[in-house]
């Protein structure tokens, strides 16, 4: 066993973290299992047939030939064909049907089950055909002659398209998921055989929480799962890692959820992420995010490893809430001289009030206050401490924050006019000041006002003006005059910068939605910022995967831009969005780097 510089056995830290993460996961899984028992209300349906087809468009299952349906509440149905609408939560078995339950057998033409209402509608053949209804799973008592819904024996609409997949059998948990077995998934016209395919359609958004970073392309294969878990493989591509594979495990219960992922799994630089969210009651919630970075070939001993964790505890009060956030980073978990040994710790306590109306005015306010502790005894990459100022290295910095927000809801500017001629006014003002134990404070102040008008039900426009002042102000000294020289080009306009920047933006937005399946927007903006944006002075703000600029106020915004966005439906469950921006008079930058094209269900 080798030892790292600080005496810890090499690799002990990842193992300890792994143990803690495993324990927390087991806790969440146990909670999920416990709640699963109490939440299971619908029977589990096992379906087998010569051919089981699934339509993604309609969320319907169609099975033909030697159909056998077995439910977890003791029902066995044989028939020629099966049809189920997963969203409507009902299924139908038709053609030479045999219904078996509790040692009894009944022959008939069709059986239709309305699972949400525990109704079973049957067309039995007892000498002559009849109609019977069974209620609350009591199959000993047929209610004869009850009026049935008019479409009770209708086959679910499968649509004209080819099935999304075919299989030999399926397990269905109504209103939650379906898991197909012996699957054939058409890929470019050829059937791709898969052992299983899991599809979740539950109302639980926590089952699709993710812990993966963005990728240019992501093909997800859910290979296992039930109503409280999903196991998924991701085939991904991005410009840095190229093609690679990732794994993600989701767990969800009544009071929390967990997500664990390994991404990329097939590249040396791996990120092991864990998200845990636990809300034991309506007032308290705990959320953690832990990331372990390793540089290792497959699962061999890593040559480098780092970890960071953030945990947030939120407690709700009657008119406010408080949050305690802890943040810990270890840049070096194995003995790697290339990595920094520093391990900063941040703790932050904040209190935030609910929006509150000021008197009877059309004005709302909310406030927040915070206290923070930041510590790093090693310092960042040999710099020493967290910040150097006045010849002193600060290894601990305290800070406290005070902020408030004032805003108006939509105020009518015109009265007694038709809605299409009505103008509305909005305004907001936010101010936040953060004091540090290093003698300086930062100010962020944003003022925004807009006028809007809806010209018709399908056409609206707004004009917005926003001023943002950002300052980093030192009681003594601070930023000194400096003229950057980059690639031999001097930028004297920056010399006036002393730690205060101003961003002014005038925006005109027009949007039209002549049809819910088709809508468009045009956004034209003028920026007047200080320091003045000049080509090559500031790095150009990259677009994220959503096509948005991520930081709200970055230096170097191009002075004029116009963005057009069109979104329309190309199939029943598929929308296409196309977006592109144009920048005026900003050096060689005219068009945004690429068209932003996105398909969404």
């Amino acid at each position, binding site marked *: 066993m080798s030892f790292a510089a600080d005496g810890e056995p090499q690799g002990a830290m990842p193992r300890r973290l792994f143990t803690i993460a495993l324990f927390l996961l087991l806790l969440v899984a146990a909670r999920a299992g416990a709640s699963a028992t109490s939440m299971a*209300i*619908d029977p589990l349906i096992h379906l087998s047939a010569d051919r089981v087809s699934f339509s993604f468009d309609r969320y319907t299952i169609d099975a033909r030939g030697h159909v056998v349906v077995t439910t977890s509440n003791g029902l066995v149905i044989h028939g*020629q064909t099966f049809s189920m609408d997963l969203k409507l939560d009902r299924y139908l078995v038709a*053609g030479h049907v045999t219904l078996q339950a509790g040692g009894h057998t009944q022959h008939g*033409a069709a059986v239709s089950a309305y699972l949400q209402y525990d109704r079973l509608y049957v*067309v039995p053949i007892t000498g002559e*055909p009849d*109609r*019977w209804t069974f*209620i609350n799973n009591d199959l000993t008592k047929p*209610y*004869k002659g*009850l009026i049935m819904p008019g479409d009770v024996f209708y086959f679910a609409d499968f649509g004209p398209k080819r099935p999304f997949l075919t299989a030999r059998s399926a397990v269905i948990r109504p209103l939650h998921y379906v898991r197909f077995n012996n699957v054939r998934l058409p890929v470019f016209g050829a059937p791709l055989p898969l052992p299983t395919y899991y599809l979740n359609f539950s109302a639980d*958004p926590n*089952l699709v929480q993710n812990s*993966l*970073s963005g990728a240019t392309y992501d093909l997800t294969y859910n290979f296992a799962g039930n109503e409280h878990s999903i196991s998924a493989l991701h085939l991904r591509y991005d410009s840095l890692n190229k093609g690679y594979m990732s794994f993600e495990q989701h767990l969800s219960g009544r009071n929390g959820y967990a997500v664990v992922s390994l991404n990329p799994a097939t590249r040396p630089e791996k990120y092991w992420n864990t998200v845990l969210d636990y*809300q034991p009651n309506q*007032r308290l*919630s705990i959320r953690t995010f832990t990331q372990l*970075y390793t540089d290792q070939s497959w699962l061999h001993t890593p040559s480098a490893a780092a970890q960071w964790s*953030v945990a947030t505890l939120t407690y*709700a*009060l009657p008119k406010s809430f408080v*949050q305690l*956030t802890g943040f810990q980073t270890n*840049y070096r978990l194995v003995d790697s001289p290339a990595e920094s040994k520093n391990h*900063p710790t941040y703790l*932050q306590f*904040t209190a935030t009030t609910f*929006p509150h109306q000021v008197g009877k005015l059309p004005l709302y306010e909310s406030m927040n206050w*915070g206290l923070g502790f930041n510590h790093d005894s090693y310092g960042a990459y040999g710099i020493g401490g967290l910040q150097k100022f*006045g010849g002193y290295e600060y290894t601990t*910095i305290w800070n406290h924050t005070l902020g408030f927000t004032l805003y108006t809801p939509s105020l009518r500017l015109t009265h007694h006019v038709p809605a299409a001629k009505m103008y509305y006014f909005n305004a907001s003002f*936010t101010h936040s000041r953060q004091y540090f134990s290093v003698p300086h404070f*930062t100010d962020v102040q*944003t003022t*925004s*006002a*807009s006028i809007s008008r809806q010209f018709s*039900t399908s056409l*609206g426009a707004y004009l917005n003006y926003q001023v943002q002042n*950002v300052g*980093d102000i*030192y009681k003594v*000294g*601070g930023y*000194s005059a400096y003229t950057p020289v980059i690639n031999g080009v001097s930028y004297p306009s*920056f010399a006036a910068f002393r730690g205060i*920047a101003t961003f002014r933006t005038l*925006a005109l*937005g027009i949007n039209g*939605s002549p049809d*819910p399946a088709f*809508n468009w927007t045009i956004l034209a903006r003028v920026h007047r910022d200080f320091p003045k944006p000049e080509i090559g002075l500031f790095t150009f703000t990259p677009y994220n995967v*959503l096509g948005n600029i991520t*930081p*709200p106020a970055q230096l170097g915004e191009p002075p004029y831009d116009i963005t057009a966005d069109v979104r329309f439906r190309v199939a029943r469950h598929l929308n296409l*969005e196309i977006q592109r921006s144009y920048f005026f008079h900003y050096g060689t930058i005219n068009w945004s780097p690429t068209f932003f094209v996105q398909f969404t*269900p």
Partner: protein
Amino acid sequence: MKRIFPLLVLSALLLAAVAPPSGLQMTGQVLDFERGYIFLTTGDAFRLADRVRILDAKTLKPTARTPEPRDFARIFFDDFGKVSAIELSGAPLPIEAPPAGIEKFVVALSTPYSLPTPTPNPNAKPDRFHPHFTPGKIVAVTFTVQVPPNTPMNAQVYITTDASNWNPQAILMHRIDALHFRVTRKLASGTDFRYLYTRGSLQTVERAENGMARKPRRLLISDADARAVGDIVYRWADDSSNGITAQPNAIPTQFNPAPFPNLPPGVPTPHP
């Protein structure tokens, strides 16, 4: 002429044998065909005549195939109300309702059972929603949401729903002023629509006013011609009032008390 006459008679006889009978007829989709009955998806069953002719609806020629579930059929009745011929088709046939007189041949409906209205399963039935309207009508639903004042001006707001398997960018909304976004969607009445607002990912989903994760909003679409929904988002999950947000696959940057993320290279750090 003598040659033609027998040919005409023969043709007429053939046509009479092959062509479907005229008179009482209807169309429907087959549910089952057995034990002397044909069953339709309406739940009705009709007794078969002793010799039923099965024809192909396209060619009108006899076929050896027997009706199977999902087949579409045109059914002909004889004078006794029994099914005398069936034309089969794989595609839907024009709707032909049963003539008034045919009702008496429907074999169904026992003597009505006298019992009170059955109680639905209290665990499974939706608790708050008791629809008393026609489902399936297309309704234009307009969602308008007020977002927190600290929402970036360049942010996009989406609706994520269970209908899209919680895709965080399922429905794009349009900004209508500094604080409001709006979108109109066509939804079928009867839809139990569960949704949340996001800024494009589940890391930026809305939170409750008290900072806790909120349960999905729920909307049952009634059969009105149009519907307007107004919601308020009080805060986003990534609101960084404490200055810390977690993003996957990113080693955190060093502590930086300066609020400027992209100062030019070489700018001296603050000093006394």
